[in-house]
């Protein structure tokens, strides 16, 4: 296997995640797209760990997984609060700071 297979796969997944973040209106779906992007980064870290024969990359991937879990918890709490205040999970309606 060559390293680039994994890197290009991760790049494609990352860009699909970017598309999702830009296009989706539902807060939960935006968080799912962010998870896609974090997963792409993890694939990169593990692929480089295999290429360089150093397990440090895998430890970083574990840290990224932990941070992602924390991020989903706080993110869903925020989406829940938006839903409770605006009666809709639609992020385009969060525009109170707009002049």
């Amino acid at each position: 296997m060559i390293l680039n297979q994994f890197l290009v796969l991760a790049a494609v997944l990352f860009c699909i995640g970017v598309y999702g973040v830009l296009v989706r209106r539902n807060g939960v779906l935006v968080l799912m797209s962010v998870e896609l992007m974090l997963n792409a980064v993890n694939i990169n870290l593990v692929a480089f760990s295999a290429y360089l024969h150093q397990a440090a990359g895998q430890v970083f991937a574990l840290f990224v997984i932990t941070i992602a879990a924390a991020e989903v918890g706080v993110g869903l709490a925020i989406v829940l609060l938006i839903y409770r205040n605006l009666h809709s999970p639609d992020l385009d309606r969060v525009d109170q700071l707009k002049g």
Partner: protein
Amino acid sequence: MVAQNVVFWILAVAMVLAAIGVVRSRNVVHAALYLVVVMAGAAAQYILVAAEFVAWVQVIIYIGAVIILFLFGIMLTRAPMGGESDLDNDRKWPAAVVSLFLVGVLATLLIDAFHAKEIKISGAGGLRTLRTGTSGHIADLIFKSYVVPFEVVSILLLAALVGAVVIARRD
């Protein structure tokens, strides 16, 4: 080598199609289930490069915990379950152009930088003999070299837990 490549491409195609399903699906629950396919595919890719501990952590935390959290989020926000048309905003084409441009730039850059670097599987210095991805090796690294970041992450998890409770609490 050939068998691993075949498995890689099958998984890669499945993951990309499922990821497109996540961002294109008209049904929120289906998007979460497509996300399960992407996560499981990523875990299988980790096993393919002998990172077994990360693979199982991926299965337990992402498929086990994060997806359940998403499904709870979908239920609590009463997201439209059956075919809703206004899940996307009307900036689809600019977003598609941006992400296609990004994938073009990244792929060109990566292919230019690492065009034929090989991941060694068998033989001396290969993954099969070095076994860097086993739980023992990872545990040695976490609790020797990276013990301070590990403790910091545990504090961060606690803070995120308390923060999520404080944010979502109904006063």
